[in-house]
């Protein structure tokens, strides 16, 4: 399942997309993120068991700002969450 967390506002589209079929609940992305954007939650989309990564409720409405420092205008872009994820379950839409 593709879970899109984030928003679109007047200045653009900002979504973190987590593929819950690929996500194995390891939590490495949660630790890698310097700004506490991610967390592990129960996969309750069908009362199934297992943990999956998600953007915290508080962060969902400000990821453009929280993720800003990891996305410099120029220079190399290294997103710690994406790099930490082995199954490649996280994508940023911007």
């Amino acid at each position, binding site marked *: 399942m593709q879970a899109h967390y984030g928003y679109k*506002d*007047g*200045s653009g589209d900002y979504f973190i997309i987590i593929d819950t079929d690929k996500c194995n609940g390891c939590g490495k992305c949660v630790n890698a993120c310097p700004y506490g954007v991610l967390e592990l939650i129960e996969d309750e989309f069908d009362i199934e068991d297992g943990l999956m990564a998600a953007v915290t409720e*508080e962060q969902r*409405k*400000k990821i*453009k*700002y*929280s993720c*800003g*420092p990891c*996305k*410099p*205008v*120029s220079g190399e872009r290294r997103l710690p969450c994406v790099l930490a994820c082995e199954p490649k379950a996280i994508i940023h839409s911007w």
Partner: protein
Amino acid sequence: MITAGVDVGAKYAKIVLLEDAKNILANAKGIVGFDILKSATEVFQKALDNTSLKRDQIVHVVATGMGRKAIHMKPPINAGEIVPEVIADAKGAYHLIPTVKTVIDVGAEEGRGVKVGENGKVRDFVINERCAAGAGTFMETMARALEVGVEEMGPLALKSTKAIPMNAQCCVFAESEVVTLIHSKTSKEDISKAIHDAMAGRIASMVLRVGVEKDVALIGGVAQNPGFLPPLEKELNTEILVPEHPQYVGALGAALLALEMEAK
């Protein structure tokens, strides 16, 4: 040689009349209405009246700002050239503060971060556009919700004794949040501080995308708000300089560019 810079912003039009890149002869500002050319012309005339100069004594006019196209090659202002805001900002800030490396410009509808290089040229920039929460409109809307004048917001925030978080990131939702806070008897001082903190946080994360290098300058209409500087300095962990007349820096930059272009 007398040149003019016209910064037609989303809310205000600002004019600077400059002599030989040294003396600021006049500056004037006015609200931009539906007819951009008309509003800008009125403000231009105001500046001329302040100095008893005539339009034909102005050798070159450069326009910047959201509405710059409306006065490009249009009489009576007849701006000969138009430049993006970030270029004018960098030029103007560099002129006032030659050691500046990072310029933060917060206007009515946009926030910008600019990295300044040699001679006031733009190295890098980031723009926070078309979202009211990242610009002066946010402050105005919140002032209305608090039922105070926008100029009172800063002084109120500075008197606050408690930092409280603000959850809403959208101007519309923040307004409701302020109303709720008022109902729960939170003081206007603390609410105003929360508003300033929230806005500073957003601007700071935008600036971090170009990187913070000293000296850092804050310009634009919002720079006139004394309550905005402390939380911004805290978020970016650096001292921030606010030049005199921060709202006119873009127009000044445009006037300087006009001189450069005329000299070529």
